[in-house]
């Protein structure tokens, strides 16, 4: 326990190291790594978004317009893989990296070097995956779920499988780090039941990640050996079953869905109390609801496979288990609304996105309930109805929460206020066009338009054109976001206060804006009145 030991890492204790490579590539700082994650996620969001633009352009009119069907299939597959593993998940990890140590009063993440490795694996994984688009035979085209036997026909399979292995390693290490940080690094006085709900949501999400990413790794490994090493896991002639893949995949896939939404719940639970100037309604119920949703996520996977030919008993079990999820989710929505009830509300951009989240995510939840019904799902399965459903929960759900979080914490990160006017322009454009984009897809799906097909019956022409126009304008609206971010980071003259928002509570608002390179090197003394949930025992 020598003095010399602590001496040399004190050199850069208060300012960021000089030099691009030293600061960003060799970093062990949770804030810098969080920034890397967020910038990476934003880049991937635009790459995945450009794939979506190709899809909507092709679907603008019936008939084959712009691209060949095979390339169209690569676009739908890559759009999903890039958005899920490249945009939404890294964005949440980035937010967790930045905010969890600040929220619990920790000096950094528990395992800082591993934290950096978790990030730096990702650009290489996506290099591997995106490179398949330029290889002979093209990228993966069997859908992001990679169902065999279709996915086994593509020579890009090995690249995609290995890319997924890398992403899995990254996610598991990231999740281990987050759990160790939350359980081991809290400042004295920060009891588990005083933690911000965002931290709770990440604790439970991290558990889900460690539990299911290895299962995905196992599933894609079986694909790999089936294609290249002559195993018969998914080949009926050898006693296997393609449906087995679907079971393993969705045992991962359903918790994965909640990995992409639980941190969003956490974000909304931070933002709503701040702008309603009231503590969250039903703190413990909120925490328990997240835990209940996480538990249920393990016993509902087969609702993705109702139409595949499951035994009746399984269909009934998974139908009822799925509908149970509406209970804890309903508790959350009720509590957000009850938090706003009687509050003195203001509507800054983060709050606008949060309210849009509550309304539109709930809409996505309702269409989910519709599909939980087995007999009804036989009609909706693999139509644009499911496309509309999961875009409501992932775009107006997960993505809106991420954007809300970015506006909410941007002043803390940069020390400057963003432009409220342009933030609101961004919000109104997003919220209008996203509904023009996805709402008509409900009708298309109910009328029977199948997903993942580049051409369609002329009967679907009008709604598709409306949807495509919404898509282009929603895509263009996100350029406003880039403008707001660049302005805030580099040009904004308006300094942010430490507290930033009048009603903000929690440790992250007690440090200066911008947050210094190192915070809480010595654990702060946590006082209940500083916390958003300090009085939960009452």
């Amino acid at each position, binding site marked *: 326990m020598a003095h010399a030991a602590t001496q040399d890492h004190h050199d850069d204790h208060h300012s960021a190291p000089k030099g691009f490579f030293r600061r960003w*590539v*060799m970093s062990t700082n949770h804030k810098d790594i969080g920034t890397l994650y967020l910038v990476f996620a934003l880049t991937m969001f635009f790459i995945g978004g450009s794939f979506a633009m190709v899809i909507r352009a092709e679907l603008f009119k019936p008939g084959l317009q712009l691209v060949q069907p095979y390339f169209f299939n690569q676009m739908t597959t890559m759009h999903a893989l890039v958005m899920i593993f490249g945009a939404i998940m890294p964005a949440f990890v980035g937010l967790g990296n930045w905010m969890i140590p600040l929220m619990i009063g920790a000096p950094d993440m528990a395992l800082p070097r591993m934290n950096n490795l978790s990030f730096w694996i990702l650009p290489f994984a996506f290099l591997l995956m995106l490179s398949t688009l330029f290889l002979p035979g093209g990228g993966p085209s069997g859908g992001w779920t990679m169902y065999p036997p279709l996915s086994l026909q593509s020579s890009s399979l090995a690249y995609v499988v290995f890319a997924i292995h890398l992403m899995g390693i990254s996610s598991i290490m990231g999740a281990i780090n987050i759990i160790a*940080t939350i359980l*081991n690094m809290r400042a004295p006085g920060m009891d588990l039941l005083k933690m911000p709900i965002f931290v709770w949501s990440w604790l439970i999400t991290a558990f889900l990640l460690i539990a299911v990413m*290895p299962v995905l790794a196992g599933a894609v490994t079986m694909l790999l050996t089936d294609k290249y090493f002559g195993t018969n*896991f998914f*080949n*009926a002639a050898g006693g296997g079953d393609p449906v087995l893949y679907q079971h393993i995949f969705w045992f991962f896939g359903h918790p994965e869905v909640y990995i992409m939404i639980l941190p969003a719940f956490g974000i909304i639970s931070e933002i709503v109390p701040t702008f309603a100037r009231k503590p969250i309604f039903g703190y413990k119920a909120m925490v328990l609801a997240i835990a209940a949703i996480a538990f249920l996520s393990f016993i509902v996977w087969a609702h993705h496979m109702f139409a595949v030919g499951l035994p009746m008993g399984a269909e009934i079990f998974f139908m009822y288990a799925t509908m149970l999820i509406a209970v804890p989710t309903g508790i959350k929505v009720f509590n957000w609304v009850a938090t706003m009830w009687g509050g003195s509300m203001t509507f800054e951009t983060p709050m606008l996105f949060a309210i849009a989240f509550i309304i539109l995510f709930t809409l996505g939840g309702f269409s989910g309930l519709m599909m939980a019904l087995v007999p009804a799902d036989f009609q909706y399965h693999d139509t644009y109805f499911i496309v509309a459903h999961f875009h409501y929960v992932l775009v107006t759900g997960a993505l809106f929460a991420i954007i809300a979080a970015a506006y909410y914490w941007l002043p803390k990160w940069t020390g400057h206020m963003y432009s409220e006017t342009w933030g609101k322009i961004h919000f109104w454009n997003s919220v209008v066009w996203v509904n023009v984009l996805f709402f008509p897809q409900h009708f298309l799906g109910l009328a029977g338009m199948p997903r993942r097909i580049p051409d369609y019956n002329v009967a679907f022409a009008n709604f598709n054109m409306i949807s495509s126009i919404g898509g282009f304008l929603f895509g263009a609206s996100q350029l406003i976001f880039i403008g707001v971010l660049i302005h805030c980071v580099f040009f904004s003259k308006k300094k942010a206060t430490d507290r930033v928002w009048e009603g903000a509570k929690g440790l992250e608002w007690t440090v200066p804006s911008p947050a210094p390179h190192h915070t809480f090197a010595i654990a702060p003394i946590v006082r209940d009145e500083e916390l958003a949930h300090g009085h939960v025992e009452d």
Partner: protein
Amino acid sequence: MGQQQDIYYVPSRSHWPIVAAVVLFLTVFGAAHWLNAEPGDSGFGKTVITIGAIGILCMFFGWFRSVIRESLAGRYNHQVDTSFRMGMMWFIFSEVMFFGAFFGALFYLRNYSVPWLGGDGHGVLTHQFLWNHYAASWGAGGGNGPEHVGGTFGTVEPWGLPLLNTLILLTSSVTVTIAHHALRAGHRGKVLIFLGVTVLLGACFIFSQANEYMEAYRELNLTLHSGVYGATFFMLTGFHGLHVTLGTIMLAIIWLRVLAGHFNKEHHFGFEAVAWYWHFVDVVWLGLFMFVYVL
């Protein structure tokens, strides 16, 4: 400055993470290229895998060397130690889930897909229209599916080599525990003996497993291609064997570190982490012995 001794150690910048990311990428990029290689390929993929694999070894060596140096310099306080423990525990949990995927596949194939192909329950139409001659059973005679993929095969008799392997692994779990108790009591000689025995037992297991594989391929015609029976048998035991190999290497490194005097009565998390890993590998084997060999 007295208080700062108990500060949580946040390492300064490090080049190991980016090195790790690059070498991991090279390995899998080379592997993907190799898997898709045409006949008469220049061998580019294999070269890249080799560079990547050597890079991974160097990375582990370098990264752990800096961790060991920091540890010996006394930079890790009790709280850092707890972080390491949690990290290892959750890593082992992720490994459990990885094996869970393959055990799940085994149970599904054995209890559902093979019987359904044989006309049981809801898959009866596949049976009627495609393979109505197929009488489903598990193991030799039915476990390679209706097309008899891989030809007639025999199964490994559980009460021969597999039983021996079970005894080897169970014994090794005992010896590693004795070594741990000796370490806590400060008897370094005893630690070296019992940890050394554990390493040898691990090596014996790998040797005997290799023999079993050779026997399966040469005499039983049980191969990776023997339908789902062969696939589950070799993937489960293969991944387990890989983990035993890694565990044995880790134990050997810990043996060298004991020899170098890196551990004392209180601080020996490296030893404990590897011991946990070894017990995990042991428990997985018990599951394998039960569900792959005996039942």
